[in-house]
């Protein structure tokens, strides 16, 4: 009863603060709290700042925008740290495996490639995390909260793919560790069979990894949707191999040793929730126990699946449009384990989904962020003019930061107003054409500064003009190299 009451309260509070962060009514949603690993940022009530000459209302809205951008940024940094820790752990375990007498023993030609697969996958994740860190650093140098969020969104796909990829990779790592134990401790286990099993599992895992590495939103979301089932399957295979390995043991002492070894490797694993306990009662006892949001986070029965801090972190990222809800849902289901993995096609329970940020705004954002449902898409326009691609490339706008990443959708009428200056003699007395204007501003600034502008400086200039022109910083990608 009490828990149930709490769930409702939590959902309501999430809904109300959730709405406030996007279109804040003055004086509401003023106590945003975020605490990753103990560090808390408590936001007090907003001061009305009249120093810009604006009204108190404008000051409040600006202050709230700054705070929610800061909160999203902290979540971004938190998630980045978490995923980085996970990839570092995987990396060190992989190097350890490469010196092990199991995988790198007699059958090294067969088993070392499995370790190499993992190392190769780790590489794109590490590159992605480095890129996301770079964008996060750049974002922290932006005064404009919209530009700050825009840069975080730019890093979102990298973070999201690394998050899911590292979950999948840590499952693969467990399989490698299991194979290592089998090879060193269970001589009667058929090596041929083990190699076949590993090969087959990698065949299943590989395409998901490729999809995640592609960073293509459609592919990533599809992979995310399938991920819980895939991890579920891998977990099942892990359990089967483990049973077989135990049965292959010649004497009790050996069996106990193998059991210990296997048990110790699975405790740090994402599979720990899903794996049936080795000698204990079957996990069917958890059937019928759904996920619930409790004070400590998302619970399944009495077990904590993910912490409240994690939920809060993800909620902010989903709401800021940095990562997608399907990706976060997949992560939750994987953490929740067996039961939910097998129900992967079903949505998370409503309360949990809301806690993760599935508010109406997010739905709308995703709708407009992609090709809207059957609606004609407004033309996209490069904010950093295409004709000067090389100029921007020379100043660091390459890769994830290439100018094609900074496009905006503009309605035709607005587009004309901005390009032609509308109907108010702007065209004649003031060359208000965006491309010409922005290049002029950047070039003048560079000449005056006496040195090449940095990406930070360029974005600062651009952010201010976008605000001046009333163009929102909802960047989208557009065609180009």
């Amino acid at each position, binding site marked *: 009863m009490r828990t149930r009451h709490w769930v409702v309260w939590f959902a309501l509070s999430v809904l109300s603060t959730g709405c406030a962060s996007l279109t804040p009514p003055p004086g509401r949603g003023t106590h945003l709290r975020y605490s990753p690993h103990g560090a808390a940022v408590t936001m007090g009530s907003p001061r009305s700042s009249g120093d810009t000459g*604006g*009204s108190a209302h404008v000051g409040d809205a600006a202050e709230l925008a700054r705070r929610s951008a800061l909160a999203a940024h902290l979540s971004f940094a938190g998630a980045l740290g978490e995923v980085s820790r996970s990839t570092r752990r995987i990396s060190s375990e992989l190097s350890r495996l490469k010196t092990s007498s199991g995988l790198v023993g007699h059958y090294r030609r067969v088993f070392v490639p499995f370790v190499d697969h993992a190392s190769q996958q780790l590489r794109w994740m590490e590159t992605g995390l480095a890129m996301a860190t770079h964008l996060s650093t750049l974002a922290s140098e932006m005064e404009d909260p919209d530009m700050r969020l825009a840069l975080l969104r730019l890093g979102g796909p990298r973070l999201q793919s690394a998050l899911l990829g590292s979950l999948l990779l840590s499952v693969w790592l467990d399989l490698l560790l299991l194979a290592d134990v089998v090879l060193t401790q269970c001589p009667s286990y058929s090596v041929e069979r083990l190699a076949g099993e590993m090969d087959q599992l990698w065949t299943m895992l590989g395409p998901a990894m490729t999809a995640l590495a592609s960073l293509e939103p459609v592919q990533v979301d599809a992979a995310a949707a399938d991920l819980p089932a895939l991890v579920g399957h891998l977990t099942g295979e892990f359990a089967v191999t483990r049973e077989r390995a135990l049965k292959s043991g010649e004497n009790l002492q050996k069996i106990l040793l193998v059991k210990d070894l296997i048990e110790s490797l699975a405790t740090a694993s994402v599979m720990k929730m899903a794996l049936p306990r080795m000698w204990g009662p079957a996990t069917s006892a958890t059937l019928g126990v759904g996920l619930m949001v409790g004070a400590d986070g998302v619970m399944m029965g009495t077990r904590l699946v993910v912490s409240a801090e994690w939920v809060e972190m993800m909620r902010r990222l989903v709401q800021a449009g940095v990562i997608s809800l399907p990706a976060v849902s997949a992560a939750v289901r994987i953490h929740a384990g067996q039961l939910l993995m097998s129900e992967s096609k079903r949505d998370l329970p409503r309360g949990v989904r809301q806690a993760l940020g599935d508010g109406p705004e997010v739905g709308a954002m995703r709708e407009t962020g992609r090709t809207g449902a059957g609606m004609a898409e407004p033309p996209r326009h490069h904010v950093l003019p295409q004709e000067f691609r090389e100029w921007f490339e020379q100043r660091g706008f390459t890769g994830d930061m290439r100018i094609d990443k900074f496009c905006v959708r503009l309605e035709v009428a607005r587009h004309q107003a901005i390009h032609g200056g509308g109907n*108010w003699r702007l065209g004649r*007395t*003031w060359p208000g054409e965006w491309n010409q204007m922005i290049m*002029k*501003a950047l070039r003048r600034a560079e000449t005056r*500064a006496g040195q090449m502008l940095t990406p930070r400086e360029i974005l600062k200039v651009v952010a201010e003009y976008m*605000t001046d022109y009333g163009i929102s910083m909802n960047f989208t990608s557009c065609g180009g190299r």
Partner: protein
Amino acid sequence: MSDGRSWDGHWKVRLYERVRERGYESLTAFAEARPTASLLALAEELGENDLNAVQVFSGLVAEAERSHRLTRLVRGQLVRELSAHLPNGWPAVLDEAHRFDVAHALARWSTYTPETHEKRVEQAGDALLASPPPPGWRPLGPDDALLLALLPDEEA
């Protein structure tokens, strides 16, 4: 903040309605009552997300053309840019960080200048960098003595 709404409909009508609602005869009078506010701050005070800085500036240009006070408007625009980008006044030393702020303010100034005045604004910018004003210089309006010396009125 901005969602592109400011370009919808008759923003010119909106702009003047708001100016009148606030008790001003002209947009210029409204702006001159807030000589150090940025164009953005003026736009935000006049409209809630449905007017933007560029529109305010174009309105100011149109009025100044009619009253032949363009040079005054151009001086006033430098005042706005300087108070936004160098809130503590002209830097004593032009170090790395300040160099960009000065460059940014001057670059913005030249884009918020009617074509007729571009050349003079360029020269004024050169002059400011060649013989810098006293540290802490922060003009509070278009009648600032140094500014007037830099860019005197020409119009009759």
